[in-house]
């Protein structure tokens, strides 16, 4: 089922695309709500935030992966393996962000 494979690849790519820009310090879209300015930077300071940018990275990765799989003519991989990989990456993201919360309290 093409829809399921596209969803699983999209989920896996989204999870990676959401985690990596922040942890690797990749440049992303930033927004300063006080100065009301938009920028593109790896570092944010003060009240500026990179959440919108990280979300855009993740959406681009997820939609890109889903589109590639949707139009691919290569023989499909087993669904069970794909589902396990996608949910493992989601679990990795959850564990990482949970560990940051636990480290801060």
């Amino acid at each position, binding site marked *: *089922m*093409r*829809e*399921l494979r*596209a*969803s*699983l690849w*999209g*989920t896996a790519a*989204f*999870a990676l695309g*959401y985690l990596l820009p922040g942890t690797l310090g990749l440049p992303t879209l930033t*927004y300063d*709500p*006080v100065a*009301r300015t938009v920028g593109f930077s790896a570092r944010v300071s003060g*009240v500026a*935030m990179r*959440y*919108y940018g990280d*979300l855009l990275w*993740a959406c681009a990765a*997820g939609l890109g992966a889903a589109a590639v799989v949707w139009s691919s003519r290569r023989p499909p991989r*087993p*669904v*069970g393996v*794909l*589902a396990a990989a*996608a*949910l493992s990456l*989601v679990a990795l*993201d*959850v564990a990482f*962000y*949970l560990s*940051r*919360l636990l480290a*801060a*309290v």
Partner: protein
Amino acid sequence: MTVIFESGARSLLLVHAVLGFTAVFAATHHAASAISAARGRPAQRQLRRFGWMASGSVVGQALFGLALYPAYRVRVRLADLERSAPAVAQLFDLKEHLSALALVLVVGASFAGRALQRDAPAAESRAVAALSGTGAALVWAAALMGLYVTSRHPVGTR
């Protein structure tokens, strides 16, 4: 100093909350239908119906949440939580991340679930159930964390 959408923050918060509750219940129903389908019961109509509701409400509440975020960041987090309750500010950060992951899981499960046939292989229906169930669990977690932070200091109040 004016923050974007600050003047309408209370209205935005109400709509965000209503859509959030809709997302919780629609995603839960979708997960229950996906689990039924994985156990061999007919659930294709429910998967289509709750798939539209779940993905629509999750995307809608995410958009309203994104609109509210600058006002939260300045008026709640910076002005209050970072000094009085830094752990609550960290909890809200976790809620944001879980919401983002829930968004892709619920939309992906809805997209895959609407195409799931009654005679689909067991591995496919189990994969849809796993996506949908994980998405619903994350939506629940994000909703409870959001309620806790809002009960402490709602955005739109000083």
